[in-house]
């Protein structure tokens, strides 16, 4: 009963409201579909929500310190399930699911959680000093890269990238210096700066500015010549390799694919179709929306994957700006609550988990909603709690369960 009193009811309530809204909007999104499987998606989602909620509440009642001790087996289990997908997986265009009797599970969703737990364990075992050494950083990197590599093989690039999302916030939280994080991230920025199609001819200037600026920055703050020289070499080669690959290595169709990825308007009826239809749906929703079941973009099936990846477009169309703001407010509350829990818990391992989970949620929310409104590319990442899909719902509710668990032990070291 003590535990019941210690529950974070606000977080639980916000989550339940979001899940309920999800089920409702899935009902609307799939209402006009020809396929009975799609029509019944809301029912399936609701049943799964009950199951996932039970799992999530069960996690709250796991005794203190148990999760810490089973972090390694959990991580291993996650990796094995990903290997199983590569061996026996099913799916339309990429093998992402594992069939377990009547259930179809997406192990990559659960591996997100186990990877965060493993990272939290690793980082909490490290001293701050060690984390600021290359060996300490490489250890954390490996924990993230192994599941990423397995998921890239499926292939599912979007999900793989989402594994990288919690890494840097958790490193930061564990005490890695901002400058070192910048050192690690700078080759990625080099690639982006030197990527011509993004800058329409200005790439050489932007790249040069970044190289000079970052070099000055690193040198002034660190003042170690060998680090500065190494970083110049690494950043320069990252940029030049990007240019070389684009100009000489990629075929035209591959370039086209990347170009439509960046600019969907250039292929309105091909791969740009989804984004354009989604923007029309959300934009035409206006301030108050077309009403529940009233979205014409959804009704006439212009909107693809309306009940899964593009559920936010349905919300935007039918509930308008007001509805979209409510959804954003719910997410903002859940995420900031997770961060607050991370800040308040005494235990370093738990604190790191909370930050990791908050980062994972933030990444998914921003990439998915960003995709539907045309500020992020199409990646196929689901929207937490709202998109139809059992595995995603389960892993996100497990994340909430973990946060509730952590909250109840917030005073313990």
């Amino acid at each position, binding site marked *: 009963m003590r535990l019941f009193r210690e529950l974070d009811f606000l977080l639980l309530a916000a989550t339940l409201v979001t899940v309920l809204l999800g089920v409702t909007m899935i009902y609307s999104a799939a209402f006009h579909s020809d396929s009975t499987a799609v029509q019944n998606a809301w029912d399936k989602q609701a049943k799964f929500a009950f199951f996932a909620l039970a799992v999530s509440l069960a996690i709250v009642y796991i005794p203190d*310190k148990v999760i*810490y001790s089973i972090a390694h087996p959990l991580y291993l289990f996650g990796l094995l399930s990903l290997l199983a997908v590569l061996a026996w997986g099913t799916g339309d265009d990429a093998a992402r699911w594992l069939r377990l009797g009547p259930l179809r599970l997406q192990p990559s969703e659960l591996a997100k959680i186990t990877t965060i737990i493993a990272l939290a364990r690793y980082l*909490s075992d490290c*001293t*701050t000093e060690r984390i600021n050494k290359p060996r300490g950083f490489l250890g954390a990197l490996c924990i993230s890269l192994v599941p990423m590599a397995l998921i890239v093989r499926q292939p599912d690039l979007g999900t793989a990238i989402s594994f990288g999302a919690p890494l840097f*916030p958790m490193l*930061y*939280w564990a*005490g890695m210096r901002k400058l070192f994080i910048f050192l690690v991230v700078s080759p990625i920025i080099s690639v982006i700066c030197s990527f011509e199609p993004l800058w329409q001819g200005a790439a050489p200037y932007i790249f040069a500015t970044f190289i000079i600026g970052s070099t000055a920055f690193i040198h002034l703050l660190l003042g170690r010549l060998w680090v500065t020289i190494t970083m110049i070499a690494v950043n320069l080669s990252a940029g030049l390799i990007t240019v070389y690959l684009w100009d000489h290595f990629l075929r035209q169709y591959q370039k086209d694919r990347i170009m439509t990825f960046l600019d969907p308007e250039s292929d309105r*009826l*091909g791969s740009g*179709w989804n984004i354009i*239809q989604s*923007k*029309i*749906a*959300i*934009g*035409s*929703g*206006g*301030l108050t929306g077309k009403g529940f079941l009233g979205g*014409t*973009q959804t*009704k*006439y*099936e*212009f909107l693809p994957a309306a009940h899964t990846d593009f559920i936010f477009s349905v919300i*935007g169309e039918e509930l*308008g*700006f007001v509805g*979209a*703001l409510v959804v*954003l407010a719910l*997410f*903002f509350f859940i*995420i*900031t609550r997770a*961060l*607050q829990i*991370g*800040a308040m818990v*005494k*235990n*370093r*391992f738990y*604190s790191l988990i909370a*930050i990791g989970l*908050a980062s994972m949620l*933030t990444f998914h929310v*921003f990439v998915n*909603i*960003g995709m539907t*409104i*045309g*500020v992020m590319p199409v990646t196929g990442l689901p929207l937490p709690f709202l998109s139809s899909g059992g595995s995603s719902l389960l892993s996100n509710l497990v994340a909430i369960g973990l946060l509730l668990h952590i909250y109840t032990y917030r005073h313990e*070291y």
Partner: protein
Amino acid sequence: MEHLPQQDQRPQINGLLRVVTLLFAVLVLRLLYLQVTTSDDYARESDENRIAQKRIKAPRGLIYDRDGRVLARNRAFYSVSLERTTRKDFDATATAFKEAIGDHEINDNYSRRHRTIRLKRDVDFRTVSIVEELLKADWPLLDIEIETQRHYPYSHSTAHLLGYMGIIQDQSLINAPGKTYMPGDFIGKTGIEKIYENNLRGLDGVHYLEVDAAGRTGRELPELDQWAVSGNELHLTIDLEVQLAAERALPDTLAGSIVAINPQTGAVLALVNKPTFDANIFVSFQAQEERQKVLQSKTTLLNRAIRGRYPPGSTLKMIGAIAALETGITDTLSTFEACAGSLAVGDVVFHCNKLDGHGEMNLLEAIETSCNIYFHHLAQILGFKTWREYADKFGFGHPTGIALDPSEAEGLLPSRQYYQEREGWTFGHLLNLIIGQGAMLVTPIQMARYTAAIANGGYLVTPYLSGEPPERQPIEGITPATLKIVRKAMYQVVYGNRGTGRRVQIDGIAIAAKTGTAQVPNRNNDAWFVAFAPYENPTIAIAAVIEGGGGGGAVAGPIVRQVIEAYFKQSGTADQAATDTLLTAH
């Protein structure tokens, strides 16, 4: 856990909170922009999405000859089409269709771009019934569509004149504002079809339907529909009987061309070439091989009547005669040194067409017998400048102004400079030019206009195919008396005892003409014949050329005779022509 609290040096949570807030602010601002600032634009796009516009193709305007006989009509045909759907459904349906008809040459390129994909166009009735009776129940997205296509009932006879249609290639036209054309549409590629494309095309209508993205149609919205407006009818000046007669008269084995115009107005009565082709193969979905054959042979598509460049031979002699009469160098009675069959000018010996010579003769006799020696003598007095001035007045070296595609050739009326840039000017060049040889090049339509100018008393007409006749230009410095003498001489070509054109005589119709046998490198002589009739008050002027045909009088003459016969055989033609003449004699 073994860690002590002091080891746990956490940064402030505010840093991470700020990052999250920033990311959410981006989303909110973007939503504000989409749903509040630019919401109206998206609302309109959403409406357009919901309502599909199905194009109703306007029927193309028919093309008629001067008497209302149809030269180009529209034929309905069936196409099997497939509504836009998923790739999976598309492939399954296309495969089922292929197997059912046992034909694997169909357009099964899936595209999301088009609402309707035509699997096979212009299918036979067997295919239509297979689709309707067997396939449609299982494959509801299959559809039979009725399309219309150009058909030319007088296929070969009108090919160069009407031109042909082809599938639009020019992307800029497809993308042009107004969306007049869609990929796969047919457009006039050459000839009348191209020149009058905008008139003939008409205005496509729009049928509105509520649809979903898969192209499945729902409620009709008749209040929004716009009817298609069919293309304008086009009435040509062409006389089908003359056109067909000309096509029949030209030999199939030789290349050649005939142009007949009304000398008073410039109305083109017939425009025929050989070799020719069946323009229907260009709009057929089956005649791929024939089409390739025609496209690869450059000589078949060549519209010789306006683009063929030939030396005119003796048919050009009237220019020398007119120049000589106008400048007072000669008259109807004067004679030169008797023709002995050849003439030496400097080092060069020029031969006459009659090896033993024509003897002593005047201008009329020289044209009647087509004596070269007489004109060589004339040239020496006339001089190049004067001769060229008169050739220029009759439009040689200039386009006639006929509106047809591809556009006409200018021919070549050489200037002194032309020779200076090449082998150098000698007087021998004029001796050749005056008898229509040497560098001189003309098109059949130029020859028809030149003949018309002699026939109509000195007016240069612009040959035209439809509409009002363009104003004709009087040729400056040509007196009616001069032309009367020349016409008389041309009459003698047909009716004189020694006339070279005696073969064209027809009972009841007085014809005036001139023969020409032009020497060309690498082939037999080209046979030329120009004529007008009736001699008094002419209503038809003709020019004909047969490449490598041989003698003008022997080969080209009888061909022209058939055309003139066909023209006058028609009941009422004479009256009709007389009326035309009265109406247009300004």
